[in-house]
C-alpha cells in the first residue's frame, strides 16, 4: 500500500523526469485509493468487490505551454512524464498557464479514521444487509431495487516546482438506497436517498433506507395529477438536480472568462430572491467533499458565492485567477486522472426560517417534488422533466401522490420567484440543501 512517503517520492521522481525532458514547471498529483463496495439489486446482495489503484497525473509546462498525462502503471512513470512534456511542446502558448504559489495548508480533523483501515468486505456486507432489513421491518410491500455501501481509503500528494508539497489521508463511507413499493398491480415511483460519513462510528444506514422507503410508500397509489402554473416545493434531491449544476456553471470563473456565464460580468447585481444565500466550504466539518487542499495544492476555505440573492464571488483556480487578475479561491477540482477543472466542494444553500411542513401549510394549491428526472440546461436555465414521488398540495396539506407529472420552467426566472427556503436541510452527495418553494412553475399532468 502506498503511504504518503511513498507518494511523495513518486511525485519528486516524476518532477525530476519531466524536467529532464525539458519542462520548466511541473505539477505532480499522486493518489492512492482502496475501495470496498457492496451493491444491492432487486432486494438482494449483488457483487461485492475490492479494488486498489495508484494514479499519478503530471502537468508539464514548457514556456507557458501545458500538457497533461496520467498513468496507473507506476513502472512507466518516466514515459508518462515524457508524454506530458511532448503534449506541452505541441500546444499553443497561453500566458495564463501558471502554477499556483504555495500557501500553508493546515490539516483538517475528522477526515481520516484509522478504524477504516480494518474495515472489511464482511463489514460492508453487514451494512448492506441492514439496509435491506430496514425496508423489511417497515412494510412488506417495500423492495430495495438498488443501493450500495462503499468504503474508501485514500492518500493524496501534490508536489510542484513552485514549492507546493502537500499530502493527506482520508476515509469516506458512502451509501444510498433506491426503494420501490409494490401493492398488487400498483408500483410506486423509485425513491432515492444518500448519506456518508468519514468515520466508522458515524455510519448510519438505517435512516437512509427508511427515508427512501417512506418516500416510496407515500407515492403508492399515485394517479394522474393536475395541470397548473403555480408554486412547487422542490425537495433537496430535486433542488440538486435542477439548481446545483447551474450554480456551478454560472459561478465558474472559467465560464465567466469565456463569456458563457450570465453572472460572470455582473457580480453585485441581484439575480435571486433575497432569501437565497449560497456558500461553498471545502473545510465544512463532516462534508463529503471536505479536504484540506484543492486539486492544485492550495488550502480550501469558505466562500460566500451568493449573499441575499446577490452573486459575490466566482470560483477560481490558478489559471482564471491570473487571467482575471482575481484572488485564487482554491476551487481546482478533479482527480489525478484529469486536468484540474473548476467546481464547488460542499455547496450549501443556507437554511431559511420555516420548516418544510410550515411551507406546505402556507400553500393553497401546489406540488411537492421529491425527485426530478429530466434535464436542466446550465446555460439557458431551461429545465423540464418528470416530477417523481410527487404530491399535490391542497389547502396546506399533502393531498395525494401523483404520477406522470411534468414540470418545466427557467431557473433564472425561478430564482427571482423563490417564496420559501426551509430550515430543514439534507445532504445530497456533496451538497447540503433545503426544500425550496418556487412560484410560477408550469406543471402538466399527462
Amino acid at each position, binding site marked *: 500500500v502506498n503511504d504518503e512517503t511513498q507518494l511523495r517520492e513518486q511525485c519528486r521522481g516524476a518532477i525530476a523526469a519531466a524536467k529532464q525532458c525539458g519542462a520548466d514547471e511541473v505539477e505532480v498529483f499522486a493518489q492512492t485509493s482502496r475501495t470496498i463496495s457492496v451493491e444491492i439489486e*432487486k432486494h438482494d*446482495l449483488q457483487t461485492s468487490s475490492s479494488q*486498489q489503484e495508484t494514479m499519478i497525473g503530471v502537468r508539464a509546462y514548457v514556456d507557458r505551454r501545458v500538457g497533461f498525462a496520467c498513468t496507473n502503471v507506476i513502472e512507466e512513470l518516466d514515459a508518462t512524464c515524457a508524454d506530458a512534456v511532448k503534449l506541452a511542446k*505541441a500546444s499553443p502558448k497561453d500566458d495564463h498557464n501558471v502554477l499556483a504559489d504555495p500557501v500553508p495548508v493546515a490539516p483538517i480533523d475528522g477526515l481520516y479514521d484509522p478504524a477504516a483501515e480494518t474495515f472489511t*468486505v464482511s463489514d460492508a456486507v453487514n451494512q448492506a*444487509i441492514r439496509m435491506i432489513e430496514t425496508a423489511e421491518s417497515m412494510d412488506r410491500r417495500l423492495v430495495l*431495487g438498488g443501493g450500495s455501501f462503499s468504503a474508501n481509503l485514500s492518500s493524496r500528494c501534490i508536489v510542484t516546482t513552485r514549492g507546493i508539497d502537500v499530502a493527506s489521508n482520508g476515509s469516506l463511507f458512502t451509501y444510498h438506497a433506491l426503494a420501490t413499493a409494490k401493492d398488487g398491480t400498483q408500483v410506486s415511483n423509485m425513491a432515492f436517498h444518500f448519506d456518508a460519513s468519514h468515520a466508522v462510528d458515524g455510519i448510519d444506514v438505517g435512516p437512509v433506507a427508511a427515508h427512501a422507503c417512506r418516500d416510496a410508500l407515500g407515492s403508492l397509489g399515485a394517479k394522474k395529477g393536475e395541470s397548473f402554473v403555480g408554486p412547487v416545493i422542490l425537495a433537496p434531491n430535486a433542488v440538486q438536480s435542477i439548481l446545483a449544476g447551474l450554480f456551478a456553471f454560472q459561478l465558474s470563473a472559467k465560464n465567466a472568462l469565456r463569456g*458563457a456565464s450570465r453572472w460572470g460580468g455582473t457580480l453585485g447585481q441581484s439575480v435571486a430572491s433575497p432569501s437565497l444565500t449560497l456558500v461553498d466550504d471545502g473545510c465544512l466539518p463532516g462534508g463529503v467533499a471536505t479536504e484540506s487542499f484543492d486539486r492544485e495544492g492550495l488550502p480550501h476555505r469558505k466562500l460566500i458565492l451568493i449573499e441575499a440573492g446577490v452573486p459575490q464571488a466566482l470560483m477560481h483556480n490558478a489559471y482564471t485567477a491570473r487571467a482575471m487578475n482575481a484572488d485564487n479561491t482554491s476551487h481546482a477540482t478533479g482527480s489525478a486522472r484529469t486536468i484540474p477543472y473548476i467546481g464547488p466542494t460542499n455547496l450549501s444553500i443556507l437554511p431559511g426560517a420555516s420548516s418544510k411542513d410550515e411551507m406546505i401549510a402556507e400553500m393553497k394549491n401546489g406540488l411537492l417534488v421529491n425527485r426530478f428526472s429530466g434535464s436542466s440546461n446550465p446555460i439557458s436555465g*431551461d429545465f423540464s422533466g418528470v416530477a417523481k414521488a410527487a404530491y399535490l398540495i391542497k389547502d396546506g396539506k399533502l393531498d395525494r401522490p401523483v404520477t406522470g407529472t411534468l414540470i418545466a420552467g427557467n431557473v433564472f426566472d425561478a430564482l427571482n420567484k423563490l417564496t420559501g427556503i426551509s430550515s430543514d436541510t439534507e445532504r445530497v452527495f456533496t451538497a447540503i440543501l433545503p426544500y425550496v418553494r418556487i412560484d410560477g412553475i408550469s406543471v402538466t399532468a399527462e
Partner: protein
Amino acid sequence: MQDILARIAAQAGGWVELRFQGRSTQQIAVRNGELEESSSKRIQGIGVRALVDGVFGFASTTDLRESSIVETVKAAQSAARTSAAAKKHRIPGLASASMAVGTFPVKTSDPLDDHPLEEKLELVLRIDERIRKASSSVVSSSTSYAEIQDEKIIVTSDGARAHLFVAIPEFRVMAVAQKDGNQCFGMKANGVHGGWRDLFAAMSPEDMADYAVRTAVEQLTAPLPQGGLATVVLDPGLVGVLSHEAIGHTVEADIVLGGAITAEKMNEKVASELVTMIDSGASEHAPHATGTLAVDDEGVATRKTTLIENGVLRSYLHNRETAAHFDVEPTGNARAFEYSDAPIIRMRNTYIEPGDTPVEDLIAGVEDGYYMCGLGFGGQADSNAEFMFGVREAHRIHNGKLGEVVRGATISGNAFDVLSSVDAVGNDFQWDLGAGTCGKSQYAKVDAGGPHLRCKATIGGRQ
C-alpha cells in the same frame, strides 16, 4: 500474459474470469481558439470475477506479477464467500456459451497511431477557427478530438481465451450563434470503431463544422414548433437514439428483472410489423460502428440479436447469468468499461433494419408534419419506455415538401407507441451515435442508427 492468466484460472478452484485491460486515451479540446486540454492517459490492470456458492465476487489490481494476480483471485473468491452467507437468491449456474478463442484485431487500413499528435491538434485548432469565421452570428465555438485504444485479454476457467483490440476515435464540433440576445446551438459529433480515415468517411471535419454553424444560425430566426401529436419523419440519428435509449434499455435482462415494461411482453406485438430491431456486436449495413465488439467481457463471442422481429418482441439482451435464468443462449452483452469494473449488461450497436421506401417518399407522404434530425440537448428515458429528447435540427413538412426550420424542438412519448405508429421505413441506413457514451453505473461506448422512418410522436418546443 494470456498463458499466465490461463494457468491461474485453471488452478483457482471454481469458476473465475480474468480480464487484463491496457488502455491508452488521448483528448484534445479547443474552445474559442484556446486550448482547453491536451492530455493522454495510460492505465492497465486486471479485473477478476469469481463465482463461489452461487455468488459473484470481484477484485482488481494494477500489479501484474503472477503472485499478485493469484492474491486478487483469492480476494474475489473471498468477497463472494462473504456475501454468500447473506444472499437470498443464489445463481444456480451460468449459461453455456460459445466461448471466444483467438485474436481479434481492429479492422482498419489507417491506424490512429500513424497520425501524430501534432496533426490531430492542428486539425482541432483549424476546425475551431473555421466555425468562428463561418458566420458573423457565431459567438462561440468548441471542437474536440478524443480516442480510446484498448488491448484486452479475457480468460475464463471454462474456456475463453480471447485477445481483443479496440480503437475508437471521435470528433465533436459545436457552434453557438447569437442574435438579439437569443442564443442557439448547432452541433455534430461522429465516432467510429476503426482508424483515422474511417472517422471522417461519412462526413469530413469541414462539413461537420459547416453543419454545426448552419443549424445554429438557421435556428436564430426560426419559430418554435407547435406542440402536440404530429406525423414526423425521423432521421437515422433519432431512430438510433430511440432504439438505444427508449427501447434498448428496457430489454436489458437485468432491467427486465428489475421490473421493466417489457417483462410481460415476450413474443407479443410491441411495434408496427414494419419494425425489426437488432442489437449486434458486428457492424451490419455500414462499417465501423462504435459498439463493434467480437467478444464481450465474459469472453462470449457476440451475436446479432433480434430484439423485435416484424413488430414482435423476440429477445432480451443477456449475460451468462440472465441467459441461464431465462433458459436462452447468452447474447454477448456483458461489458466492462475499465479493468476495475465488473461486467454488466450493455448494448453494442442498436438499430432498426432498413425497409423499402425511398427517403423522399417518406417526406412526400406527409401532408403536415415535421422532419427531425439527431439528438440535441437534453433527454431522458425510463424503464417504462417513456422518453423525451431534445432535437438537433427540425424542419416543418407541408404538403409533402420540406419547409421552414423550427428551433428548440423536443420529441416525446412512449417508445413502443411511437414504434407502433410507424407506417413506412426508409431504404437507407446510417450509424449516428458513434460519439455517444452510455452511462449505467459505468460507461460504455455504443452506437445506434437505422434508416429514416415515418411515425407519430408528441412534439414540444421550449422558449
